[in-house]
């Protein structure tokens, strides 16, 4: 916990500093007759973020906050494995949308999750993996007219559009 607290505070401080730099591309001062410039609002907020992070770091050294005294691990082995599997599979799924589209990416993710993390029976896995994209298609594309990304699988959907639109 202690280590994580420090690392997080430093990372966020670095992000705040980056935000301040980026905001400074526009005027951050007080323009006479006009009030604050375009970059002032985010700049001073980022400065505030930076101060908050520093205060977290300061308390870390003084060991005054509950987390900076905690000896519990930030993530136990189990949680770590869970976190990496889920976050990883989500990343892969979203990445795959660019290529094979939502309608193939979602079922693959569902199959992976239901079968390997949930250990459900194959019929149930297949049912959810098939029903989800179908419901999604009819709800979003036909009823609400919101097209979802399909990657190179796009031509497969032309006949469906011809039938329902």
């Amino acid at each position, binding site marked *: 916990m202690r280590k994580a607290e420090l690392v997080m505070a430093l990372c966020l401080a670095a992000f705040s500093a980056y935000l301040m730099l980026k905001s400074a591309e526009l005027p951050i001062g007080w323009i006479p007759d006009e009030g604050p410039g375009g970059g002032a609002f985010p700049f001073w907020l980022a400065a505030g973020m930076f101060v908050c992070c520093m205060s977290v770091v300061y308390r870390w050294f003084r060991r005054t906050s509950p987390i900076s005294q905690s000896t519990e691990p930030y993530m136990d082995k189990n949680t770590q494995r869970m976190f990496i599997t889920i976050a990883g599979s989500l990343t892969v799924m979203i990445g795959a949308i660019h290529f094979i589209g939502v309608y193939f990416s979602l079922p693959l993710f569902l199959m992976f999750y239901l079968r390997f993390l949930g250990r459900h029976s194959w019929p149930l896995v297949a*049912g959810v993996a098939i029903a989800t994209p179908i419901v999604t298609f009819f709800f979003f594309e036909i009823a609400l007219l919101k097209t979802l990304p399909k990657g190179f699988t796009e031509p497969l959907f032309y006949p*469906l559009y011809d039938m329902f639109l």
Partner: protein
Amino acid sequence: MKKIGVSLLSLGVAIGVGLGSVAVIDSAHAGWTPRKPIEFVIMAGKGGGADKLARFIQSIIEKHKISPKPFIPINKGGGSGAEALSYLKSHSGDSYVVMATLNSLYTTPLRQPGLGINIANFTPITRMAEDTFQLWVNSDTNINSVEDYVAAVKKAGPKAWKMGGTGKGAEDSLVTAMLSKKFGIKMTYIPYKGGGKVAKELIGNHINSTVNNPSEQLGFWDAGKSRPIASFTPKGKMSGKFAKIPTFAELGHGDDMVYYMQRSIIAPNGISADVKAFYVDVFDKVYKTKEWQDYMAKKGLLPGWLTGKALTSYFVAEQAKHAELLKASGEMK
């Protein structure tokens, strides 16, 4: 549920395989027809004038079934249209994207050269209309003419006279710059998010004057809450009740006091001639509907059908004009 799902999918696949070839042959003789919904990108955020107009066009397409596949409006208003322009640029050759534009089509590439946008590269489809601008004041004031207006601004001084408009560098600020230059007056310009908001601020007396489009002030004008002073149009162009508003040219302030908001449709570059012909045809049909003609008359828009090369040269000429305006107003070096 499961069973229905499976059978629907197999049905879909079966029909897909079966119909796929038929549909291709069918569409071959009629030029190009879309196979999927078309993205109708709007270069502005939800709820603004450009958005309303684009959604109106979409509704006409829908109502009269002008296109075999629907047009789906998507707002990409980020960065004064920079988002939409980058999007169109990156979709070069995509037959399923068209965009409704406004004057940020000219100004945004000029103000953000880093985008690398050359508007002459986009495929011009049509110009649907030109929107006009008038100078408006609250009807509680006793300003009735341009002379009254100039005198009132001078009397109030540059600090007290507040002109409301859309963002800096956008249309309203350019018209304001024209006005200031012509009459040698100075005003405090306050940018708001959209023209509708600007109109309301005038009625609430939070600002002293605006250069709204007629559609934004129409309701208040009819209710006797606001008053147009003069129109930024050439002589005799406006019809109906708008014809009663004097133009700056008629009042003897020169023919250069003219500014329009173009309402055009463009497509990415590199689309085939058939695709272009399809879109020109769709918008031509929209243009000829009674709804569109009525809308233009009622909202003070000038009819402005223009297409092909003429439209591209219009864009290029207008952009050059805007470069001058931006330089004059100090928004661009």
